[in-house]
């Protein structure tokens, strides 16, 4: 029971931490709960599908179908996170101002919510397919006491959800004017970690060069297999023995997202200068009705 609890806890936590960040990053936007819940639902469905077709997937592309598929969905998530950060650079301040002025959820940025829902779906799909395969294996091998193992799984799920919720509440405790700065950084690190993992997967499928299978070994400080290690793996892409290409993708994504955010922020101040003719609102910021 403990084994199944630990496995399910670890996998669900990795997805749950990402959901927690996404929820904090979209704080104050009306309708985000529906989008995030939708992302989770699509992710669970996708996980079941991926698990059902695990055989075909593993056999595809001369045995590296799994790596290519996972790298592809991770890259999609990286692009969505990049898009979100660009959007926040343009609209984040305005969003925070509205939230504190109105004191309730504001209607903004459906497109940004769609991007985040995709990220949630990818995170849940990726970790969830392993949980499904694992639990299915338990259900088939009845001799091991499947009920006990399933109970372990359920407890693992509940604990991971609780920890993710605590992360979310913790982030919300950050004062509003700093919240989106923090979540933007978290999202940039999350994206960099995902890009690094995608590159590492493609290297492990022998599609990309590895540029050194492991550059260093920091497992004496933080082990991959520890709980803190897997939490850091999910949050900032920590790996105790990163490959060269993994580090390169990580750095390039982090730099790229920082540059993108700067650019978008510059676009925002330019746009503000042009639209100075709308004083009617009690809210002292220009409003942008759709999130484009």
């Amino acid at each position, binding site marked *: 029971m403990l084994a199944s609890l630990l496995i399910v806890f670890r996998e669900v936590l990795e997805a749950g931490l990402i959901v927690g960040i996404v929820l904090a990053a979209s704080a104050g936007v009306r309708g985000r709960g529906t989008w995030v819940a939708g992302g989770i639902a699509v992710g669970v469905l996708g996980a079941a599908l991926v698990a059902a077709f695990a055989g075909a997937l593993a056999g595809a592309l001369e045995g590296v179908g799994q790596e290519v598929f996972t790298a592809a969905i991770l890259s999609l998530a990286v692009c969505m996170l990049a898009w979100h950060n660009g959007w926040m650079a343009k609209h984040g301040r305005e969003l925070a101002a509205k939230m504190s002025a109105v004191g309730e959820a504001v209607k903004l940025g459906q497109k940004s919510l769609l991007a985040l829902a995709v990220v949630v779906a990818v995170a849940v799909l990726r970790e969830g397919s392993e949980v499904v395969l694992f639990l299915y294996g338990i259900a088939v091998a009845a001799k091991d006491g499947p009920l006990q193992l399933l109970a372990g799984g359920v407890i693992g799920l509940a604990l991971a959800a609780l920890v993710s919720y605590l992360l979310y509440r913790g982030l919300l405790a950050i004062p509003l004017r700093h919240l989106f700065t923090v979540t933007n950084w978290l999202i940039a690190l999350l994206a960099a970690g995902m890009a690094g993992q995608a590159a*590492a997967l493609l290297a492990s499928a022998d599609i990309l060069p590895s540029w050194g*299978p492991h550059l260093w070994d920091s497992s004496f400080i933080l082990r991959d297999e520890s709980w803190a290690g897997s939490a850091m793996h999910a949050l900032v892409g920590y790996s105790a023995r990163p490959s060269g290409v993994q580090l390169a993708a990580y750095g390039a*994504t982090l730099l790229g997202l920082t540059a993108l955010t700067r650019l978008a922020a510059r676009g925002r101040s330019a746009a503000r200068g042009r639209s100075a003719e709308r004083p009617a609102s009690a809210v002292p910021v220009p409003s942008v009705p759709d999130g484009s």
Partner: protein
Amino acid sequence: MRNLMLAAACLLLAGPAGPVLAEDQPHLTIKNHRFQPERLEVPAGVKFKLMVKNEDDTAEEFESFELNREKIVPPGQEIPVFLGPLDKGEYKFFGDFHQDTAQGVLIAK
């Protein structure tokens, strides 16, 4: 402009690899949630393809922190795990779904 940069960033993930694979293909078999053999000698200093075959009727995940690998092995299938070049030494691996029995070590020589 921004979309172009995004596209470029995503394209960065594609590129050529330069594989020089060893002729040797070491084999592992998973049976009754155990690896056979549990200690396997592999070549050090070269890239090689480790073939992992799952003869159980449930999925297993070949996983190793020391090798930085994690790969599902569906029931009845044999999948390749690209490894190396490894330094000489021992590298533990395990089956993530049956950790109490599925444990093994690669010995790179």
